[in-house]
């Protein structure tokens, strides 16, 4: 509502003068991005505030493009992007509240980890001392305090990822955007980084994290966005998305020395409509309600008295999820 400059005396109530509600951390409004003939993103709309959100998609699905548009590295060809209500491509102000970990593995190898984080902290307007104290704090948070004075060039891949995360946390951001933070890390580093992300989420920050590996995202969050060929395919709770697809059979693979005996025990279960024996050592249960079967499976196994060495959900990966979502087209 514009103020009454002309003083004609039109009434303006208290409500009209109220401040607009706080803008969402990320607002993506019908954003498309194309590179020449190639479409990177196709009419994506999204608003995110609070919690950890996983962005899932195969390679080339448009995850990085989306994130680059969100952090203002790219300008959308169409549509609008707002970070805390501001267009990040035009105004760097939202960067006060943003931490961004890019997918690029390039770092200033000649700097020490501490120098790197301190220098970038100073770009937030901190003094040298403040910046150094903050840098030490965040390096400690990601578990790099003991190698802070080593050159980044000598870091392992996991350390490099973590120093990137540290630099993104140095301004205590409300919004953290991480592009493939687990890429190329060994299992130990993965676990550390996932813990860091979960911890940040627990601290009440808005976090956006991309991955092409479903199980990684599952360990971090249940709130997901699925991109496929530049389109927004699904958005919401990962398991609700799966539940919606109940008419599509799910498979559970069990490894056991006596699959036939176990199959006999499982088959009467109301949700199970078939069993198969691909090898003499394996049993596949076909069901349309994964959760119900999983709930009863331990009891059934004990009843049958058969030793089970492994339980796997072969469909529970991004590929098959995407397969279901796009109904066989890919």
């Amino acid at each position, binding site marked *: 509502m514009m103020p009454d400059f002309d003083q004609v005396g039109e009434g303006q109530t208290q409500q009209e003068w109220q401040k607009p509600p706080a803008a969402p951390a990320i607002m993506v409004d019908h954003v498309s991005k194309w590179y020449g003939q190639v479409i990177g993103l196709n009419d994506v709309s999204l608003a995110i505030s609070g919690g950890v959100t996983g962005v899932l998609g195969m390679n080339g699905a448009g995850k990085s493009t989306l994130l680059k548009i969100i952090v203002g590295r790219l300008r959308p060809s169409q549509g609008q992007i707002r970070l805390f209500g501001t267009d990040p491509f035009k105004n760097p102000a939202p*960067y006060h509240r943003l931490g961004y970990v*890019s997918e690029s593995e390039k*770092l*200033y190898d000649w700097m020490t980890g501490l120098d790197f984080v301190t220098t970038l902290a*100073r770009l937030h307007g901190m003094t040298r001392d403040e910046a150094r104290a903050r840098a030490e704090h965040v390096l400690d948070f990601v578990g790099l305090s003991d190698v802070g004075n080593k050159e980044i060039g000598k870091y392992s891949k996991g350390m490099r990822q973590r120093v990137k995360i540290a630099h993104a946390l140095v301004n205590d951001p409300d919004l953290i955007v991480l592009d493939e933070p687990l890429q190329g890390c060994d299992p130990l580093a993965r676990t550390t980084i996932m813990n860091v992300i979960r911890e940040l989420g627990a601290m009440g920050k808005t976090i956006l994290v991309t991955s092409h590996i479903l199980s990684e995202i599952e360990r971090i969050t249940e709130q997901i966005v699925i991109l496929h060929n530049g389109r927004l395919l699904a958005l919401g709770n990962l398991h609700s998305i799966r539940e919606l697809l109940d008419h599509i059979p799910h498979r559970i693979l069990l490894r056991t020395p006596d699959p036939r005996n176990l199959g006999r025990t499982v088959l009467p279960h109301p949700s199970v409509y078939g069993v198969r024996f691909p090898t003499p050592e394996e049993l596949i249960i076909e069901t349309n309600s994964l959760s119900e079967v999983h709930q009863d499976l331990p009891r059934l196994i004990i009843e049958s008295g058969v030793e089970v060495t492994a339980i796997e959900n072969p469909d529970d990966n991004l590929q098959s999820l995407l397969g279901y979502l796009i109904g066989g087209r890919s």
Partner: protein
Amino acid sequence: MQPIAPPPGPPKRNLSETVWTKLDRKATAIAEFTMRQYRKKRSTWTVGAVGVLLVVIVLLFYIDAMSEGFESEDNDGDGLIDEDPSSWTDWENSQYANRSISGPMSDDDGDCLDLEPWMRDTGNSDGIDCNVVYSYDRNGMVTSVSSDMNVDEDPNESEFLEEASHRAFLLGFGKFGFLFILGIFVPLFLATGLIRDEMESGTLHYLVGKPIARAEILMYRLLGFVGLAWPYFAGLFVLSALVTGFFGPGESIYRFSDLGIWFGILIATFLTVLAYAAVFITFGIVAGRFGVLVALLFAVWEFFMMFLAMIGVTREMGLASMSVSFWGSEIINSTAWLVWGDYAMMSGQTIAIDIALWTVWYSPFPTTSPLLNMVISIVVLLIITALFVLIGQSSFKKRELN
């Protein structure tokens, strides 16, 4: 009645939290980062070492030249070389000094002071007694020498030539060595990549993803370059000023009179280097990976303009003023006129010696004041710098970082 508590005043503003100091922090952070980055690059050290080597070699040549003598020549075409007034009979100070002898022959030692007052301004009638008038064409070349009666217009060249060569060396070295060769190549190699290299290596987003405008990043990167380049040039100037001051002609141990011209060369080179850096950083952004190529073409243009200025054809065309190096050398020219009072005479006498001495004064502005010419040149260089910084900034702002 209860006393009313005073309303709480505005929150105390911490002086260290003003907008300016925050800008200041970001500026020093980026400039410092840029300089440290330079220190880690081999190209920086290579360019620096080549520059020092060039300057040292030129200075060695200078020392060599100064330790040899100079041959005299006949400037006024009267068939005499180094017309030494002391070998003539000195009438004023002789036994006939107080006698009244009239006529021009009574004073022949070149100072004309013993002539009758009415005769002291005969010869060129310029209104000044016992004076020599050198006439110049627009390029500063002497067209005629016209002296008052009995004044020696042909000075001793073994001193004069040495002095003239020394000055020509200072100007030539300042213009071509510092302002042009080093002034263009140091920014070409070190400033072109300030933004472009970061874009290509994929590390720019670390700087750009911070609450700092891209325009500022460019400015502070430039500041970092200047923080490296200016002290480097200042060091070379100190070395050159020391060598030429101690080995140069003159009775005193050190030629303090040259410090003024060195100061002028310093100002000219600083501003030229800044302008070139602004040009090249912008080329790097606008032309991307062809930045170096475009910058090289620009350098060729600058060289061509300098060449035109040297052979003296550009004054009429006004073409040379379309280059950065032109305005830098105008600052040096102006300084020479300001610092050396006898510069006109020197440049007039030494046509044959050095181009550097007579390629003076090309300003397309109608001014005869060297000070004004210098101010104009400084302003033009700053405008060029600002213009290219603005172009670079607006291009950088629109650039997507893939």
